[in-house]
C-alpha cells in the first residue's frame, strides 16, 4: 500500500481494552488493517488488472452485443454501420467535392474507406474513454476492480468493432483491385500499435472526463477537427504542397495519420511507400508507447479518487 498510515489519528472514544489510548492509526497498524480504497503501487495495480482480464474482455463483448440487441437486423448492424459510413463519405468527398486530387480513382475509394475506419477506431475509443468512468459511476460505486478496467474494456470493444469493419474494408479493397498478399499481414502490427495508442488516450480521457463530464460535449468537435486535419479524405502532401513544409510534416506525423497510412500502405497496391513520411513505423511505435505508458500512469495516479461525483 502506498499510502502512509501514520499520521496520528484522533484518539477513539475509549474502548475498554488494552488498546485503550491508541489512536485509530496505531490501532489499525497493530492489527494490520489497511486504508480502505488506497491506491496500490503501479506494479501491484498492473497485477490486479491482469487478474481482471476475463472481466475486461467479458464486459467489452457484453457492451458490443448489447449495442444492437434491440434492432431487427441485430448483429448485422456491426457490418452495415461502417459500410453506410463509408458510402456517405464517398458520396460527399469522392463524388461531390472531389477531394481525390493526386490519387487515382481505383486507389481513392479504398484510401477513403481505410481512412474512415481507422480514424473511427481512434475517435470512438476517445469518446468511449471520456464516458467510461463518468458514465459508469454506478458500477464504480458498487464494486471493486481496478478502475482502468473500464477504459481498457471500452477500447477493446472498439477493437472488436473494428474487426467487423475490416470485413467491409477488405471487400472494398479487393473490389477495387488490390488482392490479398503478404503485405496485408502488416495490418496486424499497425492495428496493434494503434490499439495501444487508443487505450492510452482512452485512459487519459477517462481521468479528465471523470472530473469534467463536459468533455463529452466538447470532444466531438475536437475529434472532427482532428479527422479533417489527418487526411482521411485527401492526401496531405498533395493538398498542402503550396504551404510551408512544416505544416504537412506536423499533420503527417500526427498519430491518426500515421496509423491510417500504415494500414493503407499494407492493403492498397497503388499506395506505395512514396506516400508515407520517413520512419513511419518508428513514429507509430513511439506514439503507441508514449500514450500507452503516460496514459496508464496518469490514470493510475487518481485511482482512489474515481467514484467521487
Amino acid at each position, binding site marked *: 500500500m502506498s499510502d502512509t498510515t501514520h499520521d496520528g489519528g*484522533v484518539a477513539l472514544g475509549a474502548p475498554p481494552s488494552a488498546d485503550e489510548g491508541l489512536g485509530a492509526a496505531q490501532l489499525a497498524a497493530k492489527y494490520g488493517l489497511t486504508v480502505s480504497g488506497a491506491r496500490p503501487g503501479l506494479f501491484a495495480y498492473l497485477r490486479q488488472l491482469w487478474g481482471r482480464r476475463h472481466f475486461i474482455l467479458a464486459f467489452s463483448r*457484453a457492451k458490443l452485443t448489447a449495442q444492437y*440487441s434491440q434492432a431487427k437486423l441485430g448483429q448485422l448492424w456491426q457490418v452495415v454501420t461502417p459500410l453506410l459510413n463509408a458510402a456517405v463519405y464517398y458520396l460527399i468527398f469522392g463524388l461531390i467535392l472531389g477531394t481525390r486530387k493526386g490519387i487515382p480513382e481505383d486507389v481513392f475509394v479504398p484510401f477513403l474507406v481505410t481512412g474512415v475506419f481507422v480514424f473511427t477506431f481512434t475517435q470512438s475509443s476517445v469518446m468511449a474513454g471520456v464516458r467510461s468512468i463518468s458514465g459508469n459511476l454506478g458500477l464504480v*460505486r*458498487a464494486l471493486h476492480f481496478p478502475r482502468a478496467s473500464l477504459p481498457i474494456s471500452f477500447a477493446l470493444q472498439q477493437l472488436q468493432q473494428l474487426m467487423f469493419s475490416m470485413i467491409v474494408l477488405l471487400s472494398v479493397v479487393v473490389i477495387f483491385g488490390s488482392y490479398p498478399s503478404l503485405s496485408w499481414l502488416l495490418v496486424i502490427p499497425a492495428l496493434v500499435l494503434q490499439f495501444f495508442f487508443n487505450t492510452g488516450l482512452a485512459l487519459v480521457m477517462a481521468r479528465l472526463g471523470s472530473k469534467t463530464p463536459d468533455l463529452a460535449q466538447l470532444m466531438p468537435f475536437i475529434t472532427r477537427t482532428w479527422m479533417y486535419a489527418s487526411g482521411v479524405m485527401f492526401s496531405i502532401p498533395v493538398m498542402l504542397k503550396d504551404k510551408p513544409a512544416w505544416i504537412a510534416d506536423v499533420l503527417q506525423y500526427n498519430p491518426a495519420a500515421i496509423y491510417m497510412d500504415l494500414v493503407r500502405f499494407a492493403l492498397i497496391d497503388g499506395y506505395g511507400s512514396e506516400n508515407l513520411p520517413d520512419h513511419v513505423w518508428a513514429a507509430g511505435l513511439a506514439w503507441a508507447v508514449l500514450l500507452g505508458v503516460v496514459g496508464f500512469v496518469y490514470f493510475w495516479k487518481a485511482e482512489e479518487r474515481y467514484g467521487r461525483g
Partner: protein
Amino acid sequence: MAEDNTQGRIPTVIADDVHIVYRVNGTGGGRGSATAALSRMMRRGKGEPRGMRKVHAVRGVSFTAYRGEAIGLIGTNGSGKSTLLRAIAGLLPTESGRVYTDGQPSLLGVNAALMSDLTGERNVVLGGLAMGMTRDEIRERYDEIVDFSGINEKGDFITLPMRTYSSGMAARLRFSIAAAKNHDVLMIDEALATGDHKFRVRSEARIRELRKEAGTVFLVSHNNKSIRDTCDRALWLEKGELLMDGPTEEVLKAYERETGK
C-alpha cells in the same frame, strides 16, 4: 494479524473521523437556464466553482467494528447510511479522515454491472466476473445461482434478455448473483425485501449463511425488525453525524422514540 489481542476483540473496520462530500454540478443559482450557467461561470471566484454545490453527506463519523459483529445502520432517508457503507468499502473517496479495514470489504450488490439487453445466462457470468470471481468459480456455481433465483421455474427464462423479465424476476436474479460470493466484511444495503414471499424466506436464509462466513456484517435497513433479528450493535446516523452507537435494543429504542413510532 491479531497476534496479541488481550480481550479477544479484533478490529476489522476502523472509521477515523470520516467526512464525505458529494459535489453536484448544475444546481447553483436555482435556475437551470443557459444564461444562468454562463453568468455563474463569469462570476467564478477563486475558491469553489460557483456552479458546484457541495453536499456534506457524512460528518466526522468514527467507530471501530470487531470481528464477529453484525452492525445495523439506522437513520432516516438521506442520513448518510449508504454513503458511509460505500466509504467503508473504499468505493467512495473520503474528503478527510480514514477508513482502515481488514481485507477487502464488499457491498452486496451487482446491479450496476448487469446489462438488461443481455440474457440472464450472460449476466450471471458478467456479474460474477465483475465481483472478482474466476471463470471456474462461476462455472461451478452457475447452476446453483440459477436454481436459487428460481428464474427457470416458469420456463426457460435464463436464455432471454433480462429486459423481458418482470421486475421481481430481475431482482431475484440480481440477488442470487450478488449472494453467490463469500466475503470477509460484508455490507448489505436494503437488498432483503425483494421478490415474493417464498424467495424472501430463501434469501434471508442465504444472508444468515453469508453472515456466518463473513467476519463482520453491516446492514442498512429501514426495517427495524430485520435489524433486531440480525444485528447485535447499531449505529444511528442523522444528517451525516453519528448520534448513537451501542447495543441494538438501546439504540433502536431511542431511535423509535425520536421518530415517533
